[in-house]
């Protein structure tokens, strides 16, 4: 079987070319007559769709290979070579990345199509799609990179694009600040990634720094080094995937246009951390302590975000916290070494979270950019398609059997239980109930009951087809994706886990039927209790509550942002100020200014020699020549 292929590189390159073309079109025309939006729309969608087709090709090529040797590689060119470090711009497609490819390109394409409707009329239409294509291209580089370094290129590209897109409506200072926050917080995480990568290279990089060589050499890692590497990489993952303590940027990231939120939350950005941990499963699997830490951080994030989510009144913030919470689940999954379960949750979550965000976008679009759920209500009648699709998404998110979210979440909780992580399991079940509660709180308030703002309600209308069609496709995904990994208890074969098995280093826990039934039963029970509580409270319509006590505390997100500001940002600013005012003028500026002055005087002196007389220039030549000849005569002797 031929493992070297040439079409792999096109997958990230096509959207990147699209980004370049769109960017040039936009730059070239923004000051003159703008191009028709349809042209941008077509150009924007070609790249992602073709990438999706290629992703299918990758998938089927891999499927045609024997299970233990399912991988495709492409080495585009040697990027740089410094000492032992020989980094080629190479791509690697194995079952893990092929799964990521499939849903990233599919959901990315759908979001592109949806955006044509959502962004219509924006004066920076072309710029938006250029960024969107760049975003998708970076994510595909991240997914396909065959070494941590190439992965890091995509990793940084994704961070950059999130910054550009979150602050897309840059006329408003708040949006720009949100973009800054996302970027800076991500940079803190990136530091962890870089350090982890450095440690890894220091330890075993000399024998080759691509994933395959690393995997082959991982067993020689000293336990301490492995733990350090794992934790540092996890710091990177907490930044990108919004975990404690770096989750603060994600809720603010909804400042960007809604399709961007969908893309960040579903397909491109936040899944990178989970993917990275799964990619490095060959190290994490050897360090149970690291896994333990990852799992606990994950499940505590899930709990915290779920608490926040129950008290938010902005439709996108509810969804944002639900993402943080679901990401917590994924980390809990990969933390208890159930990598395929974590990745499977990434996969299903991509469908229903994209669906929910795009649905929310349709609602916001219909309500003329109103995001407060307490100004909505009764939209069920006005927007039936959006309602039904969002309901499917909500059921999937809440973990209602047989929707996609149920199977994946249950798989994680079951793994936690089966590996003896009872604490994680209990918190997980609790969070599942809370998820059902806040999801349906949102659905009930927005779509049921009586309209709270009659005027806005009267103007509300169903979104155009270009927006609803992607919703319907995603709804089908949210409905069916779970069946791909049907556990044995329901008569399935866990195809996804088997598919992923060659890429991951994991041991499937074997547990009795009893344990499995307990896990499923608890999940279903939590869902029922959560949805029932939501129905009781909001089912028949409710007024905006005035938060008191703990609720107020949670509404303000435990004042974590303010805490960070007081503990990190302000002292940092003060130190910076102090250095600028005291140390810089005296200690650093002095010698620099002095050197500059000396340099200037010397320059002025040499300027004098450029007198402009050709005879003088000839004289210089003769003098130089004479001196050189004198030296020459010495070497002749």
């Amino acid at each position: 079987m031929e493992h070297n292929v040439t079409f792999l590189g096109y997958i990230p390159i096509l959207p990147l070319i699209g980004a370049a073309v769109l960017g040039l079109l936009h730059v070239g025309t923004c000051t003159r007559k703008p191009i028709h939006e349809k042209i941008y729309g077509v150009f924007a969608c070609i790249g992602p769709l073709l990438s999706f087709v290629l992703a299918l090709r990758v998938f089927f090529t891999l499927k045609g290979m024997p299970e233990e040797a399912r991988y495709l590689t492409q080495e585009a060119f040697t990027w740089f070579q410094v000492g032992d470090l020989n980094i080629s711009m190479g791509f690697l497609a194995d079952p893990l990345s092929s799964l990521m490819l499939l849903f990233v390109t599919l959901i990315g394409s759908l979001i592109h199509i949806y955006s044509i409707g959502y962004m219509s009329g924006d004066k920076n239409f072309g710029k938006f799609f250029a960024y969107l294509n760049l975003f998708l291209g970076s994510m595909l580089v991240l997914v396909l990179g065959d070494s941590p370094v190439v992965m890091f290129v995509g990793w940084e590209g994704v961070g950059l694009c999130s910054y550009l897109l979150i602050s897309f409506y840059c006329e408003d200072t708040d949006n720009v600040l949100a973009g800054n926050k996302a970027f800076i917080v991500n940079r803190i995480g990136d530091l962890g990634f870089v350090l982890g990568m450095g440690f890894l290279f220091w330890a075993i990089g000399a024998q080759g720094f691509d994933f395959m060589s690393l995997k082959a050499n991982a067993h020689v890692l000293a336990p301490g080094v492995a733990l350090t590497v794992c934790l540092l990489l996890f710091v990177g993952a907490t930044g990108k995937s919004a975990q404690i303590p770096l989750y603060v940027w994600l809720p603010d990231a909804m400042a960007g246009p809604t399709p961007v939120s969908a893309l960040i939350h579903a397909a491109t950005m936040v899944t990178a951390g989970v993917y990275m941990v799964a990619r490095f499963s060959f190290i994490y699997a050897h360090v149970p302590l690291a896994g333990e830490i990852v799992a606990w951080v994950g499940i505590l994030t899930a709990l915290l975000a779920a608490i926040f989510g129950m008290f938010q009144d902005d439709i996108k913030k509810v969804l944002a916290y639900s993402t943080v919470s679901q990401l917590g689940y994924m980390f809990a999954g990969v933390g208890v070494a159930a990598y395929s379960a974590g990745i499977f949750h990434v996969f299903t979550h991509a469908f229903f979270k994209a669906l929910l965000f795009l649905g929310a976008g349709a609602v916001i679009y219909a309500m003329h950019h109103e995001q407060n759920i307490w100004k909505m209500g009764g939209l069920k009648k006005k927007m039936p398609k959006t309602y039904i699709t969002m309901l499917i998404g909500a059921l999937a998110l809440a973990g209602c059997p047989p929707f996609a979210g149920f199977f994946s979440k249950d798989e994680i909780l079951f793994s936690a239980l089966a590996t003896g992580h009872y604490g994680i399991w209990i918190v997980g079940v609790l969070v599942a109930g809370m998820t059902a509660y806040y999801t349906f709180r949102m659905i009930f308030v927005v779509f049921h009951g009586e309209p709270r703002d009659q005027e806005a309600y009267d103007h509300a209308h169903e979104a155009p087809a270009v927006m609803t069609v992607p919703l319907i496709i995603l709804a089908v995904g949210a409905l069916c994706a779970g069946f791909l990994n049907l556990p044995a208890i329901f008569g399935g074969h866990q195809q996804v886990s088997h598919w992923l098995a060659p890429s991951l280093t994991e041991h499937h826990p074997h547990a009795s039927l009893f344990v499995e039934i307990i896990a499923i039963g608890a999940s279903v029970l939590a869902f029922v209790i959560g949805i029932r509580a939501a129905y009781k409270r909001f089912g028949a319509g409710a007024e905006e509550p005035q938060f008191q006590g703990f609720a107020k505390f949670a509404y303000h997100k435990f004042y974590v942002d303010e805490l960070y500001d007081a503990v990190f940002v302000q002292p940092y600013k003060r130190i910076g100020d102090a250095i600028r005012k005291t140390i810089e003028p005296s200690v650093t500026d002095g010698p620099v200014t002095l050197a500059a002055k000396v340099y200037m005087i010397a320059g002025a002196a040499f300027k004098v020699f450029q007198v402009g007389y050709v005879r003088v220039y000839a004289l210089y030549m003769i003098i130089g020549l004479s001196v050189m000849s004198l030296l020459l005569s010495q070497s002749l002797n």
Partner: protein
Amino acid sequence: MTNDFMLLMPLIITGVGAIALMLIAAYDKVTIEQASMASMGVFGLAFLVQLSNTIGTAVVPYDTVFNGMLVISNFTKVAGLIILACGFFTSMSAHSYFKQNNFCTTEFYSLVAFSACGMLLLTMSQELISVFISLEIMSLAIYILVGYDRQNKRAAEAVMKYLMLGAFAGAFLTMGTALVYGGVGSTKFALIGQAVAANGFFTNPALVCGAFFILVAFLFKVAAFPFHAWVIDVYDGAAAPVTGYMATGLKTAVFAVFANFLVVDETMRAGWVNYLFYLSILTMFVGNLIAIGQTSLKRMLAASGIVHTGYLLIALVAVSSEHFSGSVILYYLGAYSVGTLGIFAALSYLGGANEKRQTFDDFKGLARVRPYSAAAIAIFLLSMAGIPPTAGFMGKLYIITSAISAGQVALAVFGIISSILSMWYYLRLIINMYFHEAVEGFEDTADFKFAPACTFILVVCVFAISLYPIAV
């Protein structure tokens, strides 16, 4: 025979193109704009043929044509590519330049092509007489181009100085050739190399003196210390596209032949390493010190050209004659050419009528009025200053690593120091463009299509070249 023909094809195309342009000029049938496009076409075609020669069918690495007078290797092919690209972009920026300056005739482009012929020949010359002839073909055309604006006193002054000092240098080259012939009995590089290998270098005074004089001539042409003084006035007096062409194409050609001459034998190269060591340091620092005192942009760029010559001399010190590939020299020349051509292309359309914008102050606030042009200039300047991720940075990196691996750590250190010093005047223009209010309006440049397009392509090249790795 066909091989030879294909290898010479770029040269033939430029030569025939030059003659055709000359005849067209005699018949007064085409406008200068059409002539400019024709010249672009000639250079473009020649470039493509050269490219297909370079990357296409595997030709013997050292292929001799014309009885060993010319030798074509991968080194000369790539040098030819750079030269043809320089010609192409010069024609492109001249197209826009002559919309604001009206001293152009069709012969201008013919002369550009003729000098390109000389440069191409020079890169391939492996024999001292052909070196002299091709050097003169190149130089004579360049002399005329420098003084093309006959009404302009500064251009006349520039061409006077250049011609006189150039003749001076040409005399050295001829004298050197005669002495070498006297010492060795041949003017072919290969035979000189054999003679040195057989009898040693410093045992043969005529050869040493001859080689020394030839060296002096080359050092003059690349404006190395202490033969640098002409370059400021000449670059300043010539028209912006011509200056760009001189600074890039001419330098590439002379450095190519310089390297070819140096590597004929290891003892001979080793004999000059000491000189080149001190000369490169002095060239870099003198260039830097001259550059910071300048107020005129073109004079600053001329002085910075001296500094870049210093870097290239470092690369020459570090070349090895056993496995000579010259990749570092060519990489640096390519990177430097892209930046320099880009700035001069930008000056061609931003300079205004009769190049009225000359000083740093005239470009104040450019970023407010012409953000894209200012950004392009900033990128070129950063590339020349050697800031990552530009081509200029990679070029400097390769030069410094090659110096270190050749054991010349001191040179590497001086190179880095000089690179830091050079920020002074590069950043000065960027500061003027970005951190000052515009003092005057810049003309609408909407109808100058070619030079802006040229800057755009070169900006892309700045980054594209930096991504192209070479084996040091």
